[in-house]
């Protein structure tokens, strides 16, 4: 693209003394832009929802690794059911909970491709628990992106397997009673116990710092697919302003004060240094 001007058109200049040739708004000076893998379709997600951010991070990682032509995504049933509208790659839209089985089918016939599933907590940790555990136990060389916002978003705010103790939802209107429905499931800690998992980490995207860390984790989880060492799972503790009935800012505050106490951020299982080379 050379020195093409990107944003400033000459007629907008009122200061004629400025030398346009020295304009800093040229492509080589760009420090941030929308990844090319991310399509122009407007996100259907609610304002403030973490899904859009995570989609963008995956798009950035695919672009930076140069693996757009080798990547196949598997979309879930849940709010991210339309994930295939946003990333310019091949996609398979799975039945509810079965994304990791679908991803297994793809990876087994195309072992050299990068295959990832993108799943919410109802999809991955309730109806799809069996597929999740067995995919991880087989050590399928896929990346699982797991969005945990403690609630069923798409169906309108019902209790999820990840809903916090005491947390209200449309199906736990008095708050989750752990004596009646049990405790929330920490699926990342669970699958980290299995020899089949290679990398399990829990991240968040509510602040720029956390977004940067989450991106690094997603990058790792894709890079490790090259090693054929096992399943990589990146859990993102996220928010649901609409069903938590909060503003986006309030939801991010509540996430820090409540979700992160139960779902502590950080790596749960990391490759030994000599292995990850």
């Amino acid at each position, binding site marked *: 693209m050379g020195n093409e001007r990107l944003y400033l058109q000459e007629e907008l200049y009122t200061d004629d003394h400025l030398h346009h040739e020295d304009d800093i708004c040229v492509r080589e000076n760009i420090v941030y832009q929308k990844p090319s893998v991310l399509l122009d379709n407007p996100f259907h997600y609610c304002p403030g929802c973490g899904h859009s951010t995570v989609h963008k991070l995956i798009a950035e990682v695919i672009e930076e690794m140069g693996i757009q032509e080798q990547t196949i995504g598997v979309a879930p049933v849940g709010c991210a059911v339309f994930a295939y509208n946003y990333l310019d790659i091949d*996609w*398979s839209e799975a039945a509810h909970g079965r994304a990791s089985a679908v991803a297994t089918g793809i990876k087994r016939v195309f072992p050299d491709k990068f295959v990832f599933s993108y799943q919410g907590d109802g999809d991955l940790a309730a109806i799809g628990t*069996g597929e999740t555990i067995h995919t991880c136990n087989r050590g399928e060389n896929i990346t699982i992106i797991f969005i945990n916002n403690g609630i069923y978003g798409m169906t309108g705010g019902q209790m999820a397997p990840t809903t916090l103790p005491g947390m209200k939802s449309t199906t736990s209107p008095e708050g989750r009673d752990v004596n009646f429905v049990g405790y929330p499931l920490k699926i990342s800690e669970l699958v980290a116990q299995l020899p089949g998992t290679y990398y399990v980490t829990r991240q968040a995207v509510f602040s720029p710092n956390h977004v940067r860390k989450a991106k690094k984790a997603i990058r790792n989880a894709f890079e490790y697919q090259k090693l054929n060492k096992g399943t990589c799972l990146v859990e993102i503790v996220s928010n649901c302003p609409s069903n938590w009935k909060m503003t986006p800012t309030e939801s991010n505050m509540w996430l820090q004060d409540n979700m992160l106490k139960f779902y502590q951020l950080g790596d749960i299982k990391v490759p030994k240094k000599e292995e990850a080379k």
Partner: protein
Amino acid sequence: MKELKLMKGNEAIAEAAIRSGCDAYFGYPITPQSEILEYLATYANKRTGMVVLQAESEIASINMVYGAAGCGKRVMTSSSSPGISLMQEGISYIACAELPCLLVNVMRGGPGLGTIQPSQGDYFQTVKGGGHGDYKLITLAPSTIQEAVDFVKLAFELAFKWRNPVMLLLDGAIGQMMEKVELFPQQERITEYEPWATTGKPKNRERNIITSLHMHPEDMEKTNIHLQNKYRQIEKEEVRYETYMCDDAEYIFTGFGLVARIAKKAAEIARNKGYKVGVFRPITLFPFPYEQINNYAKKIKGILDIEMNVGQMLEDVKLAVNGLVPVEFHGRTGGMIPTPEEIVEKFEEKIIRK
């Protein structure tokens, strides 16, 4: 040179799958069809590089099939009745997403956990839906092990020709018994992929999306109309059936799969008794040979339909006959198999002496 072997039905199906150039099998053990998985696990990968993966459930199996079939590969699964019930959601998705694949149901007695003995109790499930929504499986019903072998190859051809799942529907007896089979030569595995397959998006094409989701009612209806048009075309082009001594017949026995073989013997016994009986055997259960049965109904006095269930294909035979002649039924269930003598007795009781 002919390659003749004495083979068990399930193993012959597995051998035919390898020779068809099948790329992947995903399945879960269940009697009476586990030999398919066992045979493939022993030989397939060594011979052709075919992927054979034992899944944690039938639900996982059918969704692995969905993923791999979406890649444009030749993919299959097999199970028996309760396992096929578990797969119904996935089969509905596969039909809507128009993914070619082979499903094998070696039927056992039901309902419920039922029995491990042979049955034909899944006709309705296979032909009338099973899963949710308006979809059809091309359904092939072999009555010999030779046919089971040949139909595996045919099933993959039809699946890709029509972008539709194909069901090989047989009972546990055909799965378990041994017969002489002539095997076809090894076919090449797929090297060029369908344009719709998720193979990774090159720069020069739009992204491929395998989905059964159409949120706007207009789109969903359009998808249904497209599917129905395809099914009407399949009905025009793919009807298969066999007739036995039907030319001069005054009465016809109808039955599919194993039962049709027994019915042939019964027809011979009936002819020795002086009744002109023929046998009509639908080979494709969808598309069903309505027209062909209707044509015979114009020339005969009555039909006895025989099945190893309580009367499932019977409904389609009656639709085909459309009231032209009486249609009577004899069925056995629970793993019981009708004998030729029993069929003749029922024929005399329900049609001749009525």
